[in-house]
């Protein structure tokens, strides 16, 4: 059985992100540190658990991004992934999710995958749709927001629980091949192991050029969100902040 996990590189924090000088996208500072999208760690962990509990399972990973995105493939190797594929894309440019999904599907179609796992959402673009679109491009059924997965190899199917609002769950059977988007909390993602990191040190990452997909949307502008409430910022040092909070809570009569 072959599993592909789509993993995205995202900033560790957005604290150093700003609106680009042209105003039509964001720009990340050169000091920005990057990591694997948190939801994709859960997706990769789930794939690795299937590999460990069944025989003959391969887990590949694929990412689309600038050159630095290869770092998440290195991390995936450290966690136990077998092969990594990198689709090269521009940095600090708005990527249309339809185009991303088209490119991911084009490369994924070159393998013969029984299962494709994605994260439920990317922490930076927050779209919750790239996986579902990739599945449709590949003609695969898709279940999003999976919080439990069990594989029935004989029946070539999966039993999946997906999560809805307020914690309601749907229990679904889906035939393989298929794509799932994995929700956080399904497992506890492992840390890369030193031995695997060392073994993967000179392992190849296959890079292909991400071109030829047609964008269906453009980013016109980036704005700072409007304040929805008073948003009074307490000025001064810690002592002043403590005093002000005390004063406000006192006034609201909620201190014991």
């Amino acid at each position, binding site marked *: 059985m072959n599993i592909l996990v789509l993993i995205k590189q995202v900033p560790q924090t957005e*604290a150093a992100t700003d609106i680009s000088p042209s105003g039509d996208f964001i720009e990340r500072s050169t000091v920005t540190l990057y990591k694997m999208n948190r939801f994709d760690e859960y997706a990769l962990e789930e794939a690795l658990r299937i590999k460990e509990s069944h025989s003959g399972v391969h887990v590949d990973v694929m990412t689309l991004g600038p050159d630095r995105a290869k770092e998440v493939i290195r991390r995936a190797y450290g966690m136990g992934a077998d092969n990594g594929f990198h689709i090269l894309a521009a940095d600090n440019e708005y990527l249309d999710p339809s185009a991303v*999904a088209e490119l991911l599907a084009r490369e994924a179609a070159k393998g013969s995958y029984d299962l494709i796992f994605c994260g439920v959402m990317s922490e930076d673009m927050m779209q919750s*749709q790239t996986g579902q*679109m990739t599945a449709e491009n590949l003609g695969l059924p898709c279940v999003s927001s999976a919080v439990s997965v069990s594989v029935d190899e004989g029946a070539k199917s999966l039993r999946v629980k997906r999560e809805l609002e307020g914690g309601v769950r749907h229990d679904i059977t889906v035939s393989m091949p298929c794509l799932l988007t994995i929700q956080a*909390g399904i497992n506890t993602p492992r840390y890369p192991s030193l031995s695997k990191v060392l073994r993967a040190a000179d392992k190849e990452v296959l890079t292909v050029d991400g071109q030829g997909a047609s964008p269906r949307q453009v980013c016109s502008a980036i704005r*700072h969100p409007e304040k*929805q409430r008073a948003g009074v910022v307490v000025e001064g040092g*810690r002592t002043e902040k403590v005093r002000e909070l*005390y004063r406000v809570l006192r006034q609201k009569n909620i201190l014991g």
Partner: protein
Amino acid sequence: MNDKTLLIMAELEDNNLKPVTFDLVAAALKMTGGATRSILMAVTGTSPDAAASEAASRTGIDVLAVTVTASITSDIRKQAAAFVAGEFAPSYILCPHSAEGTDYAPALAVRLNAACISAVSGVVIDVDGNLLFSRSICGGQFNALIKPATSPAVIMIQPGAFQVQAYEGTAGAVETTTFEAGPGALRMNGVEKSRETSSELDKAKVIVSAGRGIGEPGNLDAIRRFAALFPGSAVGGSRPLIDMGWLEYRHQVGITGATVSPSVYIACGISGSTQHIAGMNGSGYVIAINSDPNAAIFNYSDLCIVDDIMGFIEAFEDFIKNGEG
């Protein structure tokens, strides 16, 4: 019904309209400048007629009741939506950015060669009269204004983002149709209604909620001590704390947890992502303590304290202990 440029895909549960359907109507009216004529709502279900007439009378919008002859899963929903879109060739198709919507709408867009803009929380008209769709990115720090380059375009509306207005005028027309669904790839085995929830968060006057910014599980003790300073308080948390096993599910605030509305909500080290905000935005007064002055939570707060959460709590406790004030 062939002058319709905007198609709304209603969301049902057990053949009843879900509130998010009216959020879609509010967004659609924003797009048309208040006119209902060019809007069509599709109400798709195994027995959708009652919900369809309810929708028509509560909104004044013309409604198409689509009876589906199979048990409905997301792949059937996608087929049915593509069928309706094929009949009317709308410029925009509005779907909810709900668990159900995210399960079928992106695939629908691929099927129709359409752009798909998800989690839309605002509509802006640019100088050339184009509609731009605003969506939150980077944990809520920025809004991106996205312009679709296709017709149709699938627009997924963030629940709760648009102001729903009550409607008192005449009802819209209702037509009916049947959709013979092809075989689905998914089989529904059952629904687990709800997980263990708590009345604690419902009853609390004050909720002190912890997020990943508290750093480590041991720091929950300080959060609990902080909460204990307020009579009638309860401890809540953002989802990652529940995912990591630091807090039990019944403490989770947000779209997939509890929706709360205490008099005072104190967010400690919480970034303010839309999924968390959806669960606490009805609170009376919101205080946020976060070390990042640009954190999105400050846009949803009455009082903003930029500080390290643990250091701040310690100083606050000292202040109380020393009998100041």
